[in-house]
């Protein structure tokens, strides 16, 4: 059985960036959205290091905002560099997607 974890991890950074691009959001909300779209095995433990890395790379910025539950919560927004990074990620993803499709589907028929 193919282990999808590695494949999903590779695309996680771009997906997180896409969620942040849509709205001002925070760690737990990002995880919930990822689960909704199909990243079932994702835990917060895998998301926060990526958020930290994206922040270090200046692809996202953060601000502490009072949360309705009590303490301040860290909200993320995408930066201009992040938007460029997201665009290049998506171009790259489309290229990989079409390359894999060429291999698997030739002249519209399934070659498996």
């Amino acid at each position, binding site marked *: 059985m193919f282990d999808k974890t590695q494949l999903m991890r590779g695309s996680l950074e771009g997906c997180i960036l896409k969620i942040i691009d849509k709205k001002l959001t*925070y760690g737990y909300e990002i995880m919930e959205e990822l689960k909704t779209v199909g990243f079932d095995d994702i835990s917060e433990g895998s998301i926060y290091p990526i958020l930290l890395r994206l922040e270090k790379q200046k692809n996202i910025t953060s601000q502490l905002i009072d949360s309705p539950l009590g303490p301040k919560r860290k909200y993320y927004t995408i930066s201009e560099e992040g938007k460029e990074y997201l665009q290049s990620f998506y171009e790259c993803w489309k290229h990989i997607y079409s390359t894999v499709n060429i291999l698997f589907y030739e002249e519209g028929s399934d070659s498996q």
Partner: protein
Amino acid sequence: MMTISLREKKKILNTEKKALRKDYKKIYTKMFIYISSFSLNYYTRTDLLLEIVGICLENQERNIPLDDVFNNDYKAFCDTMIADSLRMSKRQKALELILQFMAIIFLCSILFVLLSFTPLYNSLGSFGNNNPLHGWYYTITLKDLSYYLINPFIISLAILYSNRHTFKGEFNVFIIYFILYVVLFSISMFFLANLPLASISLPIYLIILITGMITAGLYCLFYGIQKKEYLLTQ
């Protein structure tokens, strides 16, 4: 990164730490100890701890056990979080050691003067016979001074050694720290007790003044370097 000052970050960190429940605080403390065993830049470390305490609080509010969040391996999570983080150079570590050493001497000197106001002073006879209350002049032999200096120095060394990342379990750290302390202290005491050293006189207020000034200078230098390096990465 966030554009708030270090003082403000520390304030938030303390408030959020206090808000943690016992079981959540226990894991946070373990993570704090683990992260502290790496020679991270002080400002970077504060950012990381703020991040971690935030995660702990967020999950506490949702009643999600931290073991589920970190997949029963908080160390692996910390490793990922600190990967590529700004670390102290060997020079900065050496500077930190000297700073700790001077700060301990400074505090010990103050403590010694404060003790002289109490009946406890009589039990400190081996350090000199002149009560600082009378003229604030404290006679100390070079041998006593060596005892006085070497003890905090060894403690500092032991603290530094126990902070090494090599030690994985907290209990091991404690045992190694304790053995190291006893062995080094016994060896140094044995040699110092057998050395014929001359007697000198030093006013205690001078020791306090000098060590205080050096500690303050080193403090500014150490945190200044840390801040400069941190800001360069921003």
